[in-house]
């Protein structure tokens, strides 16, 4: 059995194990769920380490271009190399960087974050988290202001009278579509104005806003259903592929085995309901 066929059998088992939850919670589902959590955590950690921490952090602190055996800084590196030779290879890390001592700050902040696991010093983790939160907040404030506020406001400013536009067209720009955008934006925004009670004329206007919001939620729900069906199709396409002779009918055998075992378990449960 080559690795491709073995992979297909594993994929079939995991897919059907997850689907088996639709029948009820069972050991197959639990195996797949725990495997997924464990493998994902390990995979992400290793990926982050080898794509960022090793090349971009250690690579900037001990680049091979400035390696010198006599320097104190590289003696520390050589010492680390004895402990983890594949992370700190002989002669420095060759990832195209120059030496930047400023990267000692992120290294320190990173170590502080790991200290959250050590109770007496776990307060230090707050500094690392504070830096991340501050940086992300600053970065996002600009992005939201420029794209979500200014860009969107610009997008809703449309001419109500334009001789080049047709009066009605649902797909292409038209007077009707412009009017829908204007009414939807204004009434939708007014719905979130809570300083005045939603009564009388104002109440009727905000009610129109609710209808626009409901249409939007409906569209979101429709898209969500479509997305889930697409994912189901993807899994079924793979299951059909793996049910072929090339993969020794993996889907059929695994499905049969699972149905028999779950059926047997259900039968036993019926016989001894207290177990």
């Amino acid at each position, binding site marked *: 059995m080559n690795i491709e066929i073995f992979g297909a059998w594993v994929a079939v088992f995991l897919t059907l194990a997850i689907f088996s939850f*639709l029948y009820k919670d069972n050991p197959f589902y639990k195996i797949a769920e725990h495997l997924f959590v464990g493998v994902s955590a390990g995979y992400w950690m290793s990926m982050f380490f080898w794509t960022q921490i090793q090349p971009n952090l250690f690579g900037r602190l001990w680049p091979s271009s400035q390696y010198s055996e006599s320097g104190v800084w590289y003696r520390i590196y050589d010492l680390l190399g004895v402990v983890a030779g594949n992370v700190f290879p002989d002669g420095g890390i060759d990832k195209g960087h120059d030496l930047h001592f400023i990267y000692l700050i992120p290294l320190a902040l990173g170590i502080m974050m790991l200290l959250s696991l050590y109770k007496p010093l776990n307060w230090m983790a707050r500094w690392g988290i504070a830096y991340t939160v501050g940086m*992300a907040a600053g970065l*996002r404030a600009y992005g939201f202001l420029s794209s979500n506020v200014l*860009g*969107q406001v610009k997008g809703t400013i449309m001419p109500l009278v334009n001789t080049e536009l047709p009066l009605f067209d649902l797909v292409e720009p038209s007077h009707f579509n412009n009017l829908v955008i204007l009414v939807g934006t204004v009434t939708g925004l007014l719905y979130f104005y809570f300083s005045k009670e939603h009564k009388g004329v104002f109440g009727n206007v905000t009610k129109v806003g609710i209808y626009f919001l409901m249409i939007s939620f409906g569209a979101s729900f429709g898209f969500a259903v479509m997305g889930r069906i697409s994912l*189901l199709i993807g899994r079924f*396409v793979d299951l059909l592929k793996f049910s072929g002779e090339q993969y020794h009918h993996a889907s059929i055998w695994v499905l049969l085995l699972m149905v028999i075992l779950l059926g047997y378990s259900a039968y036993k449960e019926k016989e001894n309901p207290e177990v």
Partner: protein
Amino acid sequence: MNYIIELILKLGKVDRRWIFLMIALVVLIPLLYPISLPIRATATTQQVYDAVEKLPHGSKVLLSCEYSPSTKPEIHPMVVSFLRHCFRNKHKIYITCLWPDGQFMAEEALEEVGKEYDLKYGEDYVLLGFRPGNEAVVKGIVSDLRKLYTIDSKGTKVTEIPMMEGINKFEDFDFLFSGSAGSPGSIDWVQYAADPTGIPMSTGTTSIQVNEVMPYVQSGQVQGILAGMPGAAEYEALIGVKGIGTSGMDAQSVAHLVIVLFIVLGNIGFFIERSREKKHRGY
């Protein structure tokens, strides 16, 4: 009439597992016996196609892969079709990934499309790979790509890759396509890259994200969107190469019809029960 009403009420009380089984069947049968329903490109898909067509041959296109195996059925066909379209028009492809799994998805797509064209790594395409940091990575690519990517996904120094010559920041690219299944993804590219620099971008997203990204398309901040699996199928139809997007559309359409039917029946059952309850209480 009474028989129909009782049947609808009975259907409303059916074990949900029968509904799951029915959905599984209506998805499976059209996959086994396709009915080839017609596929017509919507305006937003056409916009993406036109944006790529408008680029002069040899343009530098940045493709960002922000999806994983869980969303592969929706995004992968888009990325494969987009690569086909770009390679056919002789564009140079630079691939970055904001999701770790995106790198492997990109490798798979390149392997699939690479066979069809005489491509050379480093001259026709380059896989720069994944970098953690979400929007900070986008910001890094915009300000100084060389600082973020000193090596590609294979560990080759970018200074040794011929097609990286002259590529120092986001503005050195002619176009961006983001194949996005969530955050970080298309919205981050709009906010931190496309909007501040004015470089045109298009996107392909999961269905669930469409409503979130659509306002950027409407306002012209994004040039078109491939919306979920139908978007992928429409793009496949436009470039004339059928793939998994097209083959899945029959199943998608039939499943939608059945779900709509369930919703209608569920609502009818709800209203009948409510009116019976009102009568029972003597309203």
